[in-house]
């Protein structure tokens, strides 16, 4: 039956994350953006909320909570409302954990999941994006070649978050033309972590180029073993996560510019009292809500294990456009002040612009 009301448990999680985002993240996000560093304290506090580890089954040391894309979307929106870099950093281990949880072999789950049930944050990541024009998740340049006993990799990846700190990487590569995931452990010969990247936005998130030069891994490290992984589903989970994050960023920009418009006086009245401004805000509000509902619907399909490529990619494309429209207008509403780094809207515009690039950098 149609309902737009999260469960009580989901609402509790949302409230908790909302409070963390507003009490902790919003106090440091500008500093993080300027310095490029996220305080370990913030990451540890967030990790203790159990946002990722809760859904690991008890047999692997977790709490055995339900792993739900809808819950993931709710969390992603709230964290991204706080700050996108911080959200992506905190949820980064999920890039490794969730595919293993959903598609890993029993051995892979046993071997890799318990490390993420600790109290302390453990960095792990995934490498999907490649540094070239025409990058397409369905035809990767990075190749995995099997020699019967293991796999040999060649290729370059970029935008790999936390690659320098991660003990475990899930690398996506083309195996006979189809995209598959492979677990590569830190220190594997041929796995080279490059310099930290410098980007227009998400400046507090440490991302790296990663090179695979005849890097070899055992056969058992293929995600899902002989069965492989459902790459399409992983992409859809990523699309939903990023769409929800786009909603979070957009909501932050909307709220800030709305409040500003009510305070800023021009020609004797708040600029929000003029339809030129008020209608911009109305449209922003409508599109934010619409995108959220579309993300929920796609997540709902994922939770029911239904085919969701159409819903996920349609909402992702819509969210990409929406977040740019909203954050750009937020800057516009603040005018000259919006361009100054004393206000956060320029940061949200820079972060918002990235969503068309962020394939695979978040997951529900």
């Amino acid at each position, binding site marked *: 039956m149609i309902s*737009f*009301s999260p469960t009580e448990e989901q609402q509790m999680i949302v409230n908790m994350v909302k409070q963390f985002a507003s009490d902790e993240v919003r106090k440091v996000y500008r500093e993080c953006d300027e310095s490029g560093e996220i305080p370990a304290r913030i990451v540890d506090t967030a990790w203790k909320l159990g946002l990722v580890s809760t859904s690991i089954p008890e047999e692997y040391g977790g709490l055995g909570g339900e792993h739900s894309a809808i819950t993931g979307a709710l969390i992603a929106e709230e964290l991204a409302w706080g700050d996108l870099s911080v959200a992506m950093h905190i949820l980064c281990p999920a890039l490794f954990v969730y595919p293993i949880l959903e598609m890993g072999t029993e051995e892979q789950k046993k071997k890799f999941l318990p490390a993420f049930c600790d109290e302390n944050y453990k960095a792990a990541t995934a490498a999907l994006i490649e540094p070239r024009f025409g990058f397409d*998740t369905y035809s990767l340049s990075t190749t995995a070649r099997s020699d019967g006993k293991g796999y040999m990799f060649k290729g370059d990846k970029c935008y790999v978050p936390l690659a320098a700190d991660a003990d475990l990487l899930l690398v996506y590569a083309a195996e006979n033309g189809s995209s598959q995931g492979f677990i590569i452990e830190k220190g594997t010969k041929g796995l080279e972590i490059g310099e930290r990247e410098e980007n227009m936005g998400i400046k507090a998130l440490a991302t790296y180029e990663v090179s695979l030069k005849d890097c070899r891994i055992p056969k058992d490290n293929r995600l899902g073993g002989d069965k492989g992984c459902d790459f399409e589903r992983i992409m859809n989970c990523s699309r939903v996560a990023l769409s929800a994050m786009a909603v979070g960023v957009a909501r932050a920009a909307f709220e800030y510019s709305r409040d500003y418009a009510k305070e800023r006086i021009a020609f004797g009245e708040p600029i929000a009292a003029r339809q030129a401004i008020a209608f911009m805000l*109305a449209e922003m509000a409508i599109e934010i809500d619409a995108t959220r*509902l579309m993300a*929920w619907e796609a997540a709902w399909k994922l939770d029911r294990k239904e085919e969701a490529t159409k819903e996920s990619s349609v*909402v992702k494309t819509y969210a990409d456009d929406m977040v740019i429209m909203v954050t750009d207008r937020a800057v516009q509403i603040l005018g000259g002040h919006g361009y100054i780094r004393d206000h956060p809207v320029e940061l949200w515009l820079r972060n918002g612009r990235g969503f068309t690039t962020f394939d695979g950098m978040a997951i529900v």
Partner: protein
Amino acid sequence: MIDFEFTPEQKEAVEAAHKIAEELFRPISRYYDEHEHESPQELIDKLWEKRREGSLFGGLDITAALRAEEVCWGDAGLYLCVPSPGLGGAAIFATGTKEQLQRFLGNYNEGGPKWGAMAMTETGCGSDTSAISTTAVRDGDEWVLNGEKIFVTCGKRAMENPEGVVVVWATVDKSAGRAGMKSFVVQAGTPGARVEKMEKKLGIKANDTVTIVFDNCRIPYENILGSPEVRKIDKTETAGFKKAMATFDATRPIVAAMALGVGRAALDFVKETLEKEGIKIHYGLPRQKLTALERDVMDMEANYKAAKLLTLRSLWMMSQLLPNNLEASMAKAKAGLAVTKITQKAVELMGPLGYSRKYLLEKWMRDAKINDIFEGTGQINMLVVARRVLDYSRDQLK
């Protein structure tokens, strides 16, 4: 729990309505577009039978919205000809007393087909309904109405068929502004009320949009909806006016659903045509690899989905007895604009197939536009949304 699954009853309702749309509406769609003001009598009789059986139409809930979408997928103009209490009925349901409900709508499903209508717009006022100049003056046990109403959807059918009702907005005290605005039920055949002009329109041609003139039209005193008192609580809002606007919170989502039907008709036509041509939409491709056509189709689908989910949310809120003024206007604003854009884009993409009257697409584009205008123009709904999100009164944001 967040859930997008329709109930079995809702699914059945959609299927049944879709069948009716395909079998009864589509085949005569073009004819009644070309023969404006001709009444689709056979369709009306069939639908009246279905209504009496209780198997079709009515209500302001999710099921009603889903039905409205399906039938408007068939034909939006013909949908508006379906015998129903309409917007007038919605106002009576929202603000009438039990006695009024019984008197005006109690025997609604008995006898021959009946219609209801709402008369608000005048030549001098459209969206600014507080500027209404039609007057209602009390004379003993009666109200005397004088004035002229235009753009009354279904007004002719409501006025000229037995037991039809028209809810008329008039002022009882011009000096009181909004506080003096009241609504009155005028029943079909009341002397002094006459239908004058049937508008020739861009689309939804099967439906009658008329002018009704009230010339010393006398109605019983008890036909006033809500309180006759002119209470000047403050100069901007009154209970009476708010109630009229509350009717819109219930009807706007339904109108949004009607819009969705037209939009989806166009979208389906585009997708079927592409399929016939062997053109596939590749969802999930990176942007730089999508064709312009793929981007357009995905954009149309996204806009349709966005409007649909906003509509469902506003209806769900109503079912939970939550205030939905903001959400209803969001849905209506988005749906009206979305289907206007979808149908216009569809004509563009289909080229000669889109522009030719051999196909229905060009008609859907003309039909769709009304959704961005009636039941609150896109701009009026944006204004409602803006006031809500800014927490501004109508004085603070004009």
